[in-house]
């Protein structure tokens, strides 16, 4: 059988290569208070390929080498005021040069109204111009984040995704091993389901994985022998959430006596999903083992580690200290050693 890590690594990644300016505008107009200034639909079929934005100060000043014109262009106070203080002839020349590049769109911040000349050139060239009351840095940050999300790779993982004590645990394993049942059991104990069966995972920034369900299926779930249920309507709003950072992957495996499982937790494994390494736990299951409770412990132990307490490490260090101490007073007076020094009545 192929190793699960390899299987997940080989999953087909879905990656949008680009979005249209129209898609960008529709998604951004309410979120980032964008208004379109150019007429009609001209230029809305333009393509945005780059998740970065560009502030074309130098291009306006005439230096157009390395001008990343294929990015979303953002004009802040600096660019607008620079244009304003130019003499009419110089301004026309600057704008002509600027608009000779095929830019996907231009966003102007701080509600700075562009000049008529600027708008007529934009209309003529078919470059959509948007305006926003937001300040430049904030706006650039929002747009960057939005484009990063839109253009980042995604995969669909067949598993269950649950928020357990605030830790996003992704349960993976062969069909029918009981992922949905575990998710249901966790929901029953007050944890929140993010998605079942199809979990969409996408990378946020460089080191964060976000998981969510598909728009259609969201919190529906199939329970073998029962059919389809809707967790949201059965358990209510407390039992669900829409998205969550994926922090751990728990692989449910049938107990295989020939296989070795970690006994200390010191030799912890990780798994690569979309280039992000997250802890990977092989959890053998067999009758009588309460996976739900163990899942809660996995989450709590992860939190302990996150806050700086690694139980396996601490016990291991204590053991080494004890061995060293004993080795030192070799000719120890105690012939017979007890594990406990003195049991003093029935005290705490």
């Amino acid at each position, binding site marked *: 059988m192929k190793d699960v890590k390899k299987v997940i690594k080989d999953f087909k990644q879905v990656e949008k290569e680009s979005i249209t300016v129209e898609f960008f505008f529709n998604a951004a107009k309410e979120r980032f208070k964008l208004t379109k200034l150019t007429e009609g639909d001209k230029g809305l079929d333009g393509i945005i390929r780059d998740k970065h934005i560009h502030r074309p100060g130098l291009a306006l000043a005439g230096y157009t080498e390395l001008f990343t014109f294929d990015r979303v262009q953002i004009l802040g106070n600096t660019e607008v005021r620079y244009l304003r203080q130019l003499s009419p002839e110089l301004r026309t020349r600057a704008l002509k040069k600027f608009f000779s590049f095929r830019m996907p769109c231009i966003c102007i911040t701080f509600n700075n109204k562009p000049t008529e000349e600027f708008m007529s050139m934009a209309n003529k060239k078919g470059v959509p111009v948007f305006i926003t009351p937001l300040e430049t840095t904030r706006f650039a940050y929002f747009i960057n984040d939005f484009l990063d999300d839109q253009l980042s790779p995604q995969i669909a993982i067949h598993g269950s995704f649950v928020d357990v004590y605030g830790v996003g645990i992704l349960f993976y394993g062969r069909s029918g091993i009981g992922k949905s049942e575990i998710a249901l059991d966790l929901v029953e104990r007050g944890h929140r389901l993010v998605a079942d069966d199809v979990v969409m995972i996408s990378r946020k920034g460089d080191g964060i994985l976000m998981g969510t369900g598909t728009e259609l299926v969201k919190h529906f779930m199939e329970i073998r022998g029962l059919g389809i249920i809707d967790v949201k309507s059965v358990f209510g709003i407390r039992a669900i959430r829409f998205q969550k950072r994926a922090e751990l992957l728990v692989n449910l495996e049938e107990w295989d006596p020939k296989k070795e499982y970690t006994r200390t937790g010191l*030799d912890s494994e990780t798994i690569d999903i979309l280039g992000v390494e997250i802890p990977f736990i092989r959890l053998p299951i067999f009758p009588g083992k309460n996976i739900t409770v163990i899942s809660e412990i996995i989450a709590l132990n992860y939190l302990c580690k996150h806050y700086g307490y690694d139980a396996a490490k601490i016990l291991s260090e204590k053991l*080494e200290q*004890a061995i060293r101490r004993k080795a030192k007073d070799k000719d120890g007076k105690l012939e017979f050693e007890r594990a406990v020094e003195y049991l003093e009545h029935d005290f705490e």
Partner: protein
Amino acid sequence: MIEKTVTIVNKAGMHTRPASILVKIASKYKSDFYIIKNGFQINGKSIIGVMSLAAEQGSEVTLKFEGPDESKACAEIVKFFEEGFGEI
């Protein structure tokens, strides 16, 4: 049943790494495996049990095997002890 007394030979004693390997080896066999030190007997397939011994270099422990594959288990585990858990 087989009983065999061995000495811990490596410098660091039976710390976490050898303890975890020991329980993994022991778990492969059907036979029961116990370690006796200072009169106390612990289950050799339990990591916490093995760690609680805190067996230092030079200390003696008795290994006890009981079950269908006891001689095989004994051979492998005694060897592991004699080789100083692969640390010498």
